[in-house]
């Protein structure tokens, strides 16, 4: 026991002290935070200032474009030729010419002249606004009451309610359930691959360094294998926790510090636009969505509350740990059977197939969480860590969950036993790459 602790200690510290661990620990959250922040940042950066001169031959759009912080509209009646001269020397960087025919002919298009190509968002803003103006204009032309139309077109949103045991209704949200399930499943999948292969590499390293025979003369091969698996698991947990903490710190602080002004601005601006639109021409369904959105956010948080968070967390920890342990034992066995990493392909494939299969199955499980396929694969130990996590937010019966956990523990014990048998023979075999048949024979060698 004392020796096992020594092994775990070495495996843990020799990895944690590595520069690559430090780099990955810092880089990981930066990447993740980057994934979250960059799109927001890009979207904001896109909004360069534009001064647009509108030459409206139809007369419909004069003074109808609401100014935004970035886009200012000026209306003129001069010829395109003289306007283009202004484009060259200044103050405008865009000229929009709206032909007379735009009102009646769908083929007629306005033209936007530029010195520097405007971004997508500016173009989008202009065309959206024009569409709305035209929409309202045509409706008025057909004498249709806009307010009635607004009433007629209400978006329908389904609220799913779960009737719980005590008869209370609980709100659920399929989207959030799926997101939580898949998030956990991806974390488990990554953990298994990243750290399972670290175990494998560690075993190969010991074998090629020829230190393994020295060590197994002091400790049992199984102890060495177990020590390595546990040590690497602790490394994984350390890194995972650091990632989560750092990601949260980085993304929240960056968001609040870097984008503080912009966020406030955007909000102010949105309010302004709404006000303008309300006063002016109502913006149809667009407006409806905006009004609905605050409620939606509140509902979202309610839904998260309604999923049994502690149950999901406990199950996540369980499947995370035992899924890793089971696969790490298999990876250790693979590492022991070969002399170099290049030889591992043949053996890795059958181990990765159930993992990848789990994800394929998980897709259909999310759409039908109570199918018999979902039931089977969420209990089968090689796929349960991933499939069950996807199923879990959809409320799995307790007996199924218990069965799945027990079968995972049994599977873990079984595969660790098998791996231990292969490991203790494999680590002392040098030279030729064994076949599957030989690995089978190793199971029956006497210790």
């Amino acid at each position, binding site marked *: 026991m004392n020796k096992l602790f020594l092994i775990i200690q070495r495996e843990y510290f020799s990895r944690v002290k590595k520069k690559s661990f430090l780099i990955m620990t810092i880089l990981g959250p930066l990447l993740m935070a980057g994934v979250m922040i960059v799109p927001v940042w890009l979207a904001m950066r896109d909004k360069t200032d534009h001064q647009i001169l509108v030459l409206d031959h139809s007369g419909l759009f004069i003074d109808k474009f609401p100014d935004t912080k970035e886009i200012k509209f000026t209306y003129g009646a001069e010829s395109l030729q003289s306007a283009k001269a202004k484009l060259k020397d200044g103050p405008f960087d865009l000229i929009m010419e709206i032909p007379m025919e735009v009102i009646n002919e769908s083929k007629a298009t306005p033209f936007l002249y530029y010195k520097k190509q405007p971004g997508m968002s500016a173009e989008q803003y202009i065309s959206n606004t024009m569409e709305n103006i035209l929409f309202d204009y045509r409706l008025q032309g057909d004498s249709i009451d806009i307010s009635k139309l607004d009433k007629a077109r209400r978006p329908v949103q389904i609220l799913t309610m779960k009737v719980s045991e005590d008869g209370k209704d609980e709100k659920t949200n399929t989207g959030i359930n799926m997101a939580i399930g898949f998030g956990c499943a991806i974390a488990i999948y990554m953990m298994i691959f990243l750290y399972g292969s670290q175990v494998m590499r560690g075993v190969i390293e010991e074998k090629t*360094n020829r230190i393994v*025979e*020295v060590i197994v*003369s002091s400790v049992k091969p199984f102890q060495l294998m177990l020590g390595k698996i546990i040590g690497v698991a602790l490394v994984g947990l350390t890194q995972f926790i650091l990632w989560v903490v750092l990601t949260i710190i980085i993304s929240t602080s960056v968001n609040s510090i870097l984008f503080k002004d912009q966020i406030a601005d955007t909000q102010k601006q949105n309010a302004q636009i709404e006000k303008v639109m309300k006063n002016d021409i109502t913006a149809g369904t667009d407006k409806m969505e905006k009004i609905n959105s605050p409620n939606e956010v509140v509902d979202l948080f309610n839904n998260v509350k309604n999923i049994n968070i502690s149950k999901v967390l406990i199950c996540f920890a369980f499947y995370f740990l035992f899924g890793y342990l089971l696969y790490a034992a298999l990876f250790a066995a693979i590492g022991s059977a070969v002399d170099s990493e290049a030889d591992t392909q043949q053996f890795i494939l059958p181990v990765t197939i159930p993992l990848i299969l789990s994800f394929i199955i998980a897709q259909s499980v999310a759409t039908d969480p109570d199918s018999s396929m979902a039931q089977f694969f969420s209990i089968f130990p090689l796929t349960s860590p991933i499939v069950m996590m996807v199923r879990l937010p959809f409320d799995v019966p307790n007996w199924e969950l218990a069965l799945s956990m027990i079968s995972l523990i049994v599977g873990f014990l079984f595969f660790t036993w098998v791996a231990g048998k292969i490991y203790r023979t494999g680590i002392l075999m040098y030279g030729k790459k064994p076949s599957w048949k030989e690995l089978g024979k190793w199971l029956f060698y006497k210790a």
Partner: protein
Amino acid sequence: MESILEVKNINKQYANHVALNNVSLSVAPQKIFGLLGPNGAGKTSLIRIINQITGPDSGQVFFNGEHLSPKHVDFIGYLPEERGLYKKMSVGEQVMYLAQLKGLKKADAKAKLNAWFKKFEIESWWDKKVEELSKGMQQKVQFIVTVLHEPKLLILDEPFSGFDPINAQLIKNEILELRDKGATIIFSTHNMGSVEELCDNIALINKAEKILDGSVKEIRQTYKSNTYNISFKGNLLGFTNALWAGAELLDKKSDDDVHTVTVKMLRQNKPNDLLQAVLANAEILSFNEIVPSMNDIFISVVENKSTLNTQSSYTE
């Protein structure tokens, strides 16, 4: 004689071949025991069984009279033939780790390591990474780790490989010193010169079976064929004529009037009979019996099993 290690009727079979076939041997305490045999004979299998890395299919091993069990691991030091160290770890961390795996307490390990590093004058290596050391330097570190916990039984598989002659001598002296301090050493090697120099007893394993064992002295005596080397000044023809039927001339070499001949005594004739016969014709410069080297014995026994059967029955 009480033995520290007793191996009884060990059998070990792998899928396709027999590694050990009914092998028995006993190792006397405080002696150096040579475990010899050609490549693939089964030496490593036997050593791994003694180290409890693998188990025998049948048979028993006794350590100090007790059934071999995991608690004995701490009394055995093993230097495998295929040996290495963690390349990325520092020497100090590594030796501390390996010493503690052998059951030494941290402070104890540190004190003993300091003493050894001082003795070998390698204190400056402590903070180096293993990959910065040469192969010979790594071997030194490995030797220290093997003997650090003062094992009662030391198993050294090709301990001199990778050492230059100076360091080989250093290690040789350490081995002898350890024996004098009370350790028993099992020594596996293909270097027959060092067997003659170091070993008290040997066992020879070939094709999974023990084919010869006993003390080095006795075995060499057993294998001598009653031949002698004689150098003399005088008449070679007169000398050969004087041999009569009691001895056979196997080889002769002449350098001016100094002749060196190899003579095999026939029947029960004694060297003195020969000397008396030739004294009249030769001035004897040297006369010595040819005792076969372990190298010769090894080759003849392994290559020709038929002679060995008669011989080994004689030694037993």
